[in-house]
């Protein structure tokens, strides 16, 4: 694969919650990995002595994975999170496999179905809508 798709995400390193792309069919579907380690700064306080990946950050990693399917150079923000389920706490040592599939869109809005698994077991799922913002956006309807 020429270049690492993760490096195309607009997020800075301090707010990047995807480590590696396993497979990608541009604009259609992607599978990515996120390794959870005890060194993650957000786990220091969540919770001291009992590190658990915050659910909102798990959703963020799912949204960033979905964002890999947007046209290159796009920045996008969350517009809708539907049917989100956080089934099992994710802890240091877990490797999260995140699978996102694009399910249509309209203008700047793109809808995805996203699932997160650890060792083959679903830990989270959600329908996520991302809105492209900034120079690549079409504008408001």
């Amino acid at each position, binding site marked *: 694969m020429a270049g690492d798709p993760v490096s195309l995400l607009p997020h800075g390193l301090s707010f990047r919650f995807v480590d590696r792309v396993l497979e990608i069919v541009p604009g259609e579907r992607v599978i990515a990995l996120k390794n959870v380690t005890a060194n993650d700064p957000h786990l220091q306080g969540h919770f001291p002595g009992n590190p658990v990946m915050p659910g909102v950050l798990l959703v963020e990693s799912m949204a960033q994975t979905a964002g890999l399917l947007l046209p290159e150079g796009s920045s996008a923000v969350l517009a809708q999170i539907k049917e989100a389920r956080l089934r099992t706490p994710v802890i240091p040592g877990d490797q999260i496999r995140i699978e996102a599939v694009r399910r249509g869109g*309209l*203008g700047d809005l793109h809808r995805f179905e996203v699932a997160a698994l650890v060792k083959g077991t679903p830990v989270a799922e959600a329908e996520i809508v991302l809105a492209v913002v900034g120079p690549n956006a079409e504008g408001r309807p």
Partner: protein
Amino acid sequence: MNEIAQRVRTLLSTRLKLATAVEGINDDTPLFGPTGLGLDSIDALELVLGLEKEFGVVVEDRVTAVKVLASIRTIAEHIQSQGKG
């Protein structure tokens, strides 16, 4: 046509969280904007996906969506013009 409009009305009530009872929505009530139901762009996406699923009609882009999704009547007319419903 009336039957298609009724199915569109059902689609609105099942896919969107409307503040108004769907029976009270006229065929010509604007779906967007302050004078109508005040739907937003996320509702529009929801409707476009619903129309594709329920009627097999495709709304390609935003410009088409603005025209097609104006009211229950315009949606029903679009479905009919595509030979669907």
